[in-house]
């Protein structure tokens, strides 16, 4: 059952009037409060000024008038297609089409053998890529963990290489600097056959945390963002304020500030290279007010992420955001309900590229193999909701109701056979619906243990998505650490 790219939009936490009010508030923020920048972004400031923005160089403040924003935003494509290596994994990001996948950068893993938490390695990144490749409801691969066992100068190229080798799905990641970006483009071009072929079918894209909320441009990330845009490599404009610490405590205030940050980012990109593909990357988050840590599992994160999609849809730019996070430390009941709530809310909101949606625990700090399997099931269920209930002659089934007749049963009716594999969600195997006797006979395994067993089976399947010849060429050119 293919549940990728279904239309969401059934849940709209904001009315159209509220969307307009927040959009207006964001324009006002950019016109009157403005954004700030640091040394290194002079060229970007000059570019904005030449286009009509007011730049105060002493205070390092840039105020952007609304017509410049509106004109720039209009140039951003309404549709961005992020490709898989195989076209069946292509992501058509537009309107309310929903795709959900992994998110980036954890540094710990629950060791699949011991259950103990430990630092993530390059091998973990490869294993997790293999899992994502085989779990149907995880639609794309944002590099989920950091190879803490390799030198940081080798990060960029090795993270992309490892993901691209282990999985045929679209790969997205951040890079450390512009040089890293160029290397990654070069390697991906080798895999694609040429840079033109890569631009034609971009199976990689980059994330840049261009904004440091509130309202500040991050120098390094903004430069990377502009460089990706110049190369027409799709880029997600990530900005992730936490309500209560880096944005107002209230949801409306957080949405307004975040929308302003995104409008500024889109404006910079479209001035840099009009028409270049990008994703509106507003990720409204919350601070845990008891510790000020990131509070990804809160139900309000689900609500706000659905709302931010309404704002991106209003300006007709596909969006990247976040859901299915949890603050739990292991795949327990809390992880289950936090993930399910935020996943289904954001999916029903219609967000186009929902990352962080698989494998994560401890608010972005840890992953676990079994969690990828469980989240595959959660995403599948959330996307199934989007399919809705089909009501047509065939699905109304009047004929079969009549032929079975009062007092009969439907178990062997041909109508049952023709819908048996498509009407209901098919579990990936982690959900237990056996009798207690059977369940006990099989070892009384809970969902976590069942998921671990599934992950183990999937990891037994070896596969490389890079041909031997290209692999050798890449190894001759770059310092690839994962053994051939």
């Amino acid at each position, binding site marked *: 059952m293919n549940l990728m790219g279904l239309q969401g939009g059934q849940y709209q936490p904001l009315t159209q009037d509220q969307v307009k009010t927040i959009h207006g508030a964001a324009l006002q923020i950019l016109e009157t409060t403005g954004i700030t920048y640091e040394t290194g972004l002079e060229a970007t400031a000059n570019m904005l000024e030449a286009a009509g923005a007011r730049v105060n160089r002493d205070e390092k403040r840039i105020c952007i008038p609304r017509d410049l924003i509106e004109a720039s935003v209009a140039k951003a494509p309404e549709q961005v297609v992020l490709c898989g290596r195989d076209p069946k994994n292509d992501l058509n990001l537009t309107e309310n089409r929903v795709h959900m996948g992994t998110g980036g950068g954890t540094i710990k893993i629950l060791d699949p053998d011991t259950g103990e938490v430990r630092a993530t390695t390059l091998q973990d990144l490869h294993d997790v890529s293999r899992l994502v490749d085989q779990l149907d409801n995880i639609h794309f691969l944002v590099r989920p963990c950091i190879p*803490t066992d390799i030198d*940081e100068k080798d990060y960029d190229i090795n993270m992309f290489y490892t993901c691209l080798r282990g999985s045929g799905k679209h790969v997205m990641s951040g890079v450390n600097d512009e040089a890293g970006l160029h290397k990654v483009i070069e390697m991906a071009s080798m895999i694609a056959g040429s840079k033109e072929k890569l631009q034609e079918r971009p199976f990689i894209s980059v994330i840049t945390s261009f904004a440091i909320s509130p309202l500040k441009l991050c120098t390094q990330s903004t430069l990377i963002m502009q460089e990706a845009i110049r190369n027409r490599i799709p880029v997600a404009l990530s900005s992730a304020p936490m309500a*209560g610490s880096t944005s107002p405590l209230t949801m409306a205030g957080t949405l307004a500030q975040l929308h302003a940050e995104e409008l500024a980012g889109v404006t910079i990109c479209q001035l840099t290279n009009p028409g270049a593909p990008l994703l509106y990357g507003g990720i409204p988050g919350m601070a845990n007010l008891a510790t000020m840590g990131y509070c990804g599992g809160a139900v309000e994160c689900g609500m706000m992420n659905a709302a931010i999609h309404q704002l991106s849809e209003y300006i007709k730019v596909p969006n990247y955001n976040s859901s299915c996070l949890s603050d739990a430390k292991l795949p327990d009941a809390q992880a289950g309900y936090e993930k399910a709530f935020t996943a289904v809310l954001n999916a029903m909101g219609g967000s186009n590229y929902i990352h962080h949606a698989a494998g994560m625990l401890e608010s972005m700090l840890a992953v676990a193999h079994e969690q990828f399997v469980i989240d595959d099931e959660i995403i599948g269920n959330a996307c199934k909701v989007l399919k809705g209930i089909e009501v047509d002659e065939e699905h109304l089934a009047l004929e079969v109701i009549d032929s079975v007749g009062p007092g009969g049963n439907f178990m062997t009716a041909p109508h049952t056979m023709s819908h048996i594999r498509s009407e209901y969600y098919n579990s990936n195997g982690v959900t237990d619906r056996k009798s207690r006797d059977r369940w006990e006979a099989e070892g009384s395994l809970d969902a976590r243990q069942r998921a671990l067993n599934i992950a183990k089976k999937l990891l037994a399947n070896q596969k490389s998505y890079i041909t031997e010849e290209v692999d050798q060429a890449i190894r001759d050119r770059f310092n690839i650490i994962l053994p051939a």
Partner: protein
Amino acid sequence: MTDFSEIRECLVGLDDSRLPGLISRALDAGAAPADILNQGLIAAMDIVGERMENGEMFIPEVLMAAQSMSTGVDILKPLLGDEGGSDRGRVVIGTVQGDLHDIGKNLVAMMMESAGLAVHNLGVDITPEAFVAAVKEQDANILCLSALLTTTMPMMKQTVDAIVESGLRDKVKIMVGGAPVTQGFAEEIGADAFAPDAGSAAKQAKSLIS
């Protein structure tokens, strides 16, 4: 002896408008400024710290209390002479080079301030040389380094090394922290202490110099 419970309640209850009045009343009644500080303000902040650790008070409320505390300290300072300030810890804190995360580091700074330490907050993306210079300038006895990225953790080691090379290592205790940092890592790079959160960081800092 004056009863300082009202002052404590006022701080803990975030009722800061009443604080200056209560302090002058206590002074008029003949209370010693040092007693008002220790048995009133600092004792209140201890309660606040405890409530924070139990999750009964939110961090923004703790910061509010810390702000009123410093208003109170400002009133008392001129009357305290040397007794309040001379033995205070002098902290230099910053996020290491290449790292822009500052929420946790700022929290640590604020908690240390409200624990009575003098804190010099350098900001983010601070080079080892800038840390060395600040430690010298501020005559600091505690240096706090924050890092949130595995890519910038090596910079903590480089900063510790720079302190050693500058000959300041004996004069300053070094604390490290941030989400990926562990006790083991702290030991490995030759730091003196690690703390997992802002509350325990402030406590640790005080015990390091006492």
